[in-house]
């Protein structure tokens, strides 16, 4: 739309009156966008001004959200390394490209970090001058009335018999009574309210920095480890006890909270009927823990970690650990214990390995090692009924299938070994009398005899459960929470409070009657501003009762014609 001279002046008046109604950075002038003609310092200044402008902040916000996308669609090392491996195996051409782009570690990648670091530098570069400006505004007083009040977004005027000084006095009282900061400048009262908007906005932006710092501290100092515990066993919080352990780069092992706990029992219940049969209903781990002092009991549930000092113990997974006894050819027990098996489906069909490393001698008295592959189902479908897969997650009809091997388990080869798998490269499978591979499906209490007097393995009646726990320590949580609360509070202030100015001018008209003019200006257009101005005007009419209008409007009265609302 082409702007006319009048609206241009109107705009100028508004701009003057609205000056410093916010601390938003100044809009760039064309010259600034064109780049500086000065040397290096000029360029640095120019770059800094660009970086801290609203426009660049907006672009960086865009890039941040865009940059977050790939990490949600491509498997991430931080979330699930196994899935990343599977993905890499399935996409041979994409993988090198993705690796180069750090798409498997998006949120710690160089480019993602660059975006948010730039954003936060820009944020700081913006907050600091804005805060100074705001302090300055708090210490100064609202600017005087613009020459033409009728150009402002909300305007009202009337004539009154009261004296101008009296009207101004009354206006000052009314405005101050409504918690405006008000003072008289020349022939008008200038008032302003809603400074909390700016304060809220600054608090919000500072809170974002606090959250980021808290997040960074958490990442650097955190530790997180997993531990699988069979019912009856315990754990004490030292590095060597963990199955796996990850920590931030500034974490020291001394930082581990000293405590220990024992898994007394694990209870899992499942939906028995209906279409959601098998869906878990309760997972509860009853533990006894202590921090050096007396033992305490606690129950850990999925949403209820155990908190000990700065550490939290979370219940992550569970499964079964059948108890087996292995005897050698002379009937000597060489292994007795619960063997945790890993679930492979939702009905807890489980697999694993039983390894007899020491103490076993074959029938000739020669030292050897034994290994068994175990396949376990808590609820068997029934003999002759399809596959060896579990029908239900609870221990309703447990069956275990075993095959045995003898030889060298290669546990001493120096390579880390998966406890749930057998390295069969130096092992020989037991064969039954007719030369077939030995394999047996067993019920609790049953025993499989190894051929040729090699001994036996018994599936004991006792099937234990195991639970795995994650023990995490992440400092900075409290700080992050404080930042988050401050962010919401600041944001609410920033969005719900309207910062506005009101001017009341009272002058003696040409005919000697006082003319009162009131106008309001907000940073953004608001329906409440005219309403508030109306309220104020009504209150003020108590002290400045309207006088009858003269027959003819004063020539300078620019009140727009009222045709538009008809």
């Amino acid at each position, binding site marked *: 739309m082409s702007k006319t001279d009048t609206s241009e002046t109107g705009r100028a008046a508004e701009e003057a009156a609205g000056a410093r109604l916010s601390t*938003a950075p100044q809009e760039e002038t064309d010259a600034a966008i064109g780049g500086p003609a000065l040397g290096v310092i000029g360029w640095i200044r120019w770059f800094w001004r660009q970086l801290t402008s609203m426009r660049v902040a*907006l672009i960086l916000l865009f890039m941040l959200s865009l940059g977050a996308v790939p990490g*949600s669609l491509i498997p991430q090392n931080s979330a699930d390394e196994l899935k990343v491996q599977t993905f890499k195996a399935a996409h041979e051409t994409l993988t090198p490209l993705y690796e180069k782009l750090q798409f498997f570690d*998006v949120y710690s990648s160089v480019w993602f970090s660059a975006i948010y670091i730039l954003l936060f530098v820009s944020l700081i570069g913006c907050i600091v001058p804005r805060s100074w400006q705001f302090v300055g505004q708090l210490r100064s007083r609202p600017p005087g009335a613009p020459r033409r009040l009728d150009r402002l977004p909300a305007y009202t005027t009337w004539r009154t018999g009261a004296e101008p000084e009296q009207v101004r006095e009354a206006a000052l009282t009314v405005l101050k009574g409504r918690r405006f900061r008000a003072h008289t400048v020349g022939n008008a009262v200038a008032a302003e309210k809603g400074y909390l908007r700016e304060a809220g906005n600054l608090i919000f932006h500072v809170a974002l920095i606090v959250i980021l710092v808290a997040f960074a501290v958490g990442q650097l100092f955190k530790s997180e480890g997993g531990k699988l515990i069979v019912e009856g066993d315990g754990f004490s919080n030292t590095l060597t006890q963990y199955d796996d352990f990850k920590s931030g780069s500034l974490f020291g092992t001394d930082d581990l909270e000293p405590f220990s706990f024992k898994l007394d029992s694990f209870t899992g219940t499942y939906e028995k009927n209906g279409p959601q049969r098998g869906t878990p209903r309760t997972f509860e781990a009853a533990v006894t823990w202590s921090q050096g002092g007396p033992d305490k009991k606690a129950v850990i549930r999925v*949403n209820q970690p155990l908190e000990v000092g700065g550490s939290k113990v979370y219940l992550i997974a569970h499964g079964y650990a059948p108890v087996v006894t292995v005897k050698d050819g002379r009937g000597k027990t060489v292994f007795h214990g619960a063997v945790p098996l890993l679930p492979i489906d939702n009905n807890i069909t489980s697999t694993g390995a039983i390894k007899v490393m020491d103490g076993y001698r074959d029938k000739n008295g020669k030292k050897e090692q034994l290994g068994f592959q175990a396949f376990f189902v808590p609820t068997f479908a029934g003999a002759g009924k399809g596959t060896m897969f579990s029908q239900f997650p609870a221990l309703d009809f447990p069956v275990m299938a075993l095959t045995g091997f003898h030889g060298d388990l290669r546990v001493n080869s120096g390579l880390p070994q998966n406890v749930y798998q057998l390295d069969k490269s130096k092992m020989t499978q037991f064969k039954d009398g007719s030369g077939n591979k030995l394999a047996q499906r067993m019920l609790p209490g049953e025993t499989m005899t190894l051929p040729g007097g090699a001994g036996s393995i018994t599936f004991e009646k006792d099937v234990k459960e195991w639970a795995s726990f994650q023990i995490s320590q992440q400092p900075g949580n409290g700080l992050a929470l404080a930042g988050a609360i401050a962010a919401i509070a600041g944001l609410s202030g920033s969005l719900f409070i309207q910062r506005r100015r009101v001017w009341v001018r009272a002058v003696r008209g040409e005919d000697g009657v006082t003319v009162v003019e*009131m106008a309001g200006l907000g940073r953004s257009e608001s329906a409440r501003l*005219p309403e508030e101005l109306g309220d104020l005007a009504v209150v003020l009419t*108590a002290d400045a009762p309207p006088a009858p*209008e003269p027959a003819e409007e004063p020539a300078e009265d620019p009140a727009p014609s009222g045709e538009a609302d008809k």
Partner: protein
Amino acid sequence: MILAATATNESLAQLSDLLIYSSMAVYTLAFFAHIAEWVFGSRSKVGRTAAALTSAPKAAPAAGVTVKVKQAGGTAVLDKPKVVTRSAAGTRDVPDGPGAAGGTVKGDLYGRIAISLTVLAFAIEAAGVVSRALSVQRAPWGNMYEFSTTFSTVAVGAYLGFLVAKKNVRWIGLPLVTTVLLDLGMAVTWLKTPSDQLVPALDSYWLWIHVSTAIFCGAVFYIGAVATLLYLFRDSYENKLATGGNPGSFARSVMERLPSAASLDKFSYRVNAAVFPLWTFTIIAGAIWAGDAWGRYWGWDAKEVWSFITWVGYAAYLHARATAGWKGRKAAYIALIAFACFLFNYYGVNIFVSSKHSYAGV
């Protein structure tokens, strides 16, 4: 406590299904009544917009709207001060359209029927959601079927709330009822999950806090998005008129009845800005819950990522509104993108992306 899982009350669950289907039937009637409102209504004051845009003398100051000021006390007052408002310099001054009924009696009648039917359908749907909750004895937000039914109930509730507050929102009726039907249709065909208990990970009081605010935010963001979309149409229409173009008669008929672009823009801004702090809270509540359930409050899980993207999107929208050269249409596009992210987070992430938050139940 949840050992009583089998206590799922079958008959209440069936009642809930029946209520949801009934509400769909009533929404369908409301849909047709809205169509009738649009068909029988007319853009009564022909070319108000065009008149306001083209015939206004150039030198005239921006046309004002006179607001009557409430009068304090009843004493003999000669005259009330009138507050004259004017739009900011550079914006168009166009009156709002008369609404779908366009001031015609017949159109208005159908419009009222449509709203009455919407109220009825809302009541039935709300009863459906509540009976579902009673049948499972928990918050009815355990899977996508339940999210979807609650979501549309809340969206319609918000719309009716605006109506009760005497806001000018009747124009949203038709698009709203249409999408509610789509939402419910998808819910009963693809997302249907039998009434049941929650998996242990969802069993927390944070479910009440986090999911209820998420659903509320979604419903209100949705209303904001509809207003934003209509703003874009109406704005092009006004632009066309202002530059002397001649829109088709259908566009003319529909657009003339909508509120002015400025009003739609303001409405969508208020709605989006008002829920943004609540959306911030929703994400923070989710983070606290994740801290309890999974041992970390932020792990860049797909759901978390898309909530974050949505949040940044709306923050960008708010910024755009305060940035020179980004106000108006550009800001509106950002708001629509942000809402698209919200939708993707709901449908896309729940169904297609594997995430710790996979409890879509489909």
